């Protein structure tokens, strides 16, 4: 039983190939959404927490002198991008929890004895679900930020925001799924999520620019994947968009918008390739 979960099989069943894969993926995705609708606390908490951050942190620095931030933007504008990314990140970091519970309580075995066209449908369902939730939560934060006066990206800016969030969500979902299969139980997974969440946020440009940070923190922030998502979104809110411009002044050099996006793509692909052997071992 060593076949890769990513290889399309040649055997046929009642409905062949792609349509069968679609049927099983949609069914698994539907299950996750039914759970969400009947137990919406995760969705609500995923919006409430960043909302609170947005309001409180924005208020905290509302009397800061004009021009204290690079580019002269207000702290609310600065913070908005950070909170939007934090929302998507936190949502995606929880991607592994449903899978972990399925592993622990035997439901995954029910899926594994079924003649799935490809067991990657289990992964696809998680990715579709978490991506939808994370984007929904992020849009809710964006709308709130707009009503708080923190701005709204133009059409091309909005597209950039969505693409950036998608890339970040894919990367973090891959990480979370990998942890869900690598760790022995949900307690360990929740502990890692709990420990990783805030430090990753603080060691990024979500709440402060690199120029405010001591050297060691600046280095951490400039290699933090969150930063590569935050800066393009911040640029999208900053007016006319030019991805060729430098948007991140890192200790190791300047990074353009394109550079940030390419880094995110690389991190996404890299993480999925990294977890592939583990998923193959557990699911194939």
């Amino acid at each position, binding site marked *: *039983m060593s076949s890769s979960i990513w290889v399309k099989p040649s055997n046929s*069943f009642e409905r062949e190939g792609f349509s069968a894969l679609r049927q099983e993926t*949609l069914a698994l995705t539907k299950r996750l959404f039914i759970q969400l609708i009947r137990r919406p606390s995760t969705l609500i908490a995923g919006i409430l927490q960043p909302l609170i951050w947005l309001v409180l942190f924005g208020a905290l620095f509302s009397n800061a002198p004009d021009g204290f931030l690079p580019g002269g933007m207000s702290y609310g504008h600065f913070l908005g991008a950070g909170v939007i990314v934090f929302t998507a990140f936190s949502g995606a970091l929880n991607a592994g929890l449903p899978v972990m519970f399925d592993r622990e309580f035997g*439901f995954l*075995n*029910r899926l594994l*004895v*079924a*003649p799935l066209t490809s067991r990657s449908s289990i992964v696809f369902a998680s990715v579709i679900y978490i991506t939808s939730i994370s984007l929904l939560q992020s849009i809710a934060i964006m709308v709130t930020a707009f009503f708080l006066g923190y701005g709204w990206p133009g059409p091309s800016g909005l597209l950039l925001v969505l693409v950036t969030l998608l890339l970040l969500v894919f990367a973090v979902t891959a990480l979370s799924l990998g942890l869900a299969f690598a760790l022995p139980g949900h307690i360990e997974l929740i502990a890692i999520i709990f420990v990783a969440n805030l430090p990753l946020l603080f060691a990024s440009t979500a709440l402060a620019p690199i120029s405010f940070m001591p050297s060691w923190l600046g280095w951490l922030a400039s290699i933090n994947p969150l930063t590569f998502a935050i800066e393009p979104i911040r640029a999208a809110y900053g007016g006319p968009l030019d991805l060729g411009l430098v948007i991140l002044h890192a200790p190791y050099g300047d990074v353009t918008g394109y550079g940030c996006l390419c880094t995110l793509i690389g991190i996404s692909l890299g993480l999925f390739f990294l977890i592939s052997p583990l998923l193959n071992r557990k699911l194939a």
Partner: protein
Amino acid sequence: MYLIELEELVKAYGAVKALNGLTLKVPNGSLYGLLGPNGSGKTTTLRILCTLLAPDSGHASVAGINVLEDPRSVRSEIGYVAQEVAIDKILTGLELLQLQGDLYHLNPRERDSRIAELIERLDMKAWINRRCGSFSGGMRRRLDLASGLLHKPRLLVLDEPTVGLDIESRSAIWQLLRELKSEGTTILLSTHYLEEVEALADQMAIIDAGCVIAEGSPQGLKQELGGDRVTLRVREFSDEDESAKVRDLLVKVEGVRQVVVNRAQGFSLNLVVDGEDVLPRLRENLKKSNFQVFALTHSRPSLDDVYLQATGRTLMDAELAVSGRRDIKLETKQAMR
């Protein structure tokens, strides 16, 4: 002729050998029982068959399909009802069955028609639209059975299907299994209940320490064993010395093949005798030696006697021995993928 063929299966979890060269064949259309205590290797065998586990060595096939070479085809032939009922507490029973139907790629019309049929057959109508988390053990088991039967598998594999159920639920499941067998479904059932194998199985295998140590029909195994069984007490609670004296006395009586002191049951004596005509001689010899007969039971050989002969202990003793050593955490970890 054989739907399942297992040959020299070996599987170890670290230093513990769960399967140690297990070999058996299940005839097409039969109801086959695997009897053994917890920890004997039954669940591991079924998991290998259902492609949840790969054996360390050996061969396993269903309908001629090797489980390692073409696991997907094997999965479409099997309906698996696991020992622990794994349900999604948030979904309703109906939604769970619909999910199951989609995972087996049934087209929506066929899926819904089959679900309706099973709801009727398994008498689930009153609660099928409730959330699974509210179901009793019997309801969960019936739902799980329905899940396993949804795609009309050739082979139904059940791992301890009536554990923890009340008598009524158990009887209902037994009746269903008999009906399925008469309709042509091959059924492989693991259990540690003697009466379940006795009531249902055409063929059975006794598994102990990861291999098959006896195989045949329940009736055939009992007949092969031969001899009648007598259980004797000379007082309500004997001590070891007294029972040993009675043993030494009775083993010399004509027609007595074997006398064993049963420590687990108050030092009663278990005898294997040629037939019921030995009983008067037993009473006579006991009376001559001034022993009373407090209780005496006589029976034909039972499956427990078959188990005792094959393993050297009764099934209850085997269960008791294992229950003290059972590591539930380890078993849960072994079941996780």
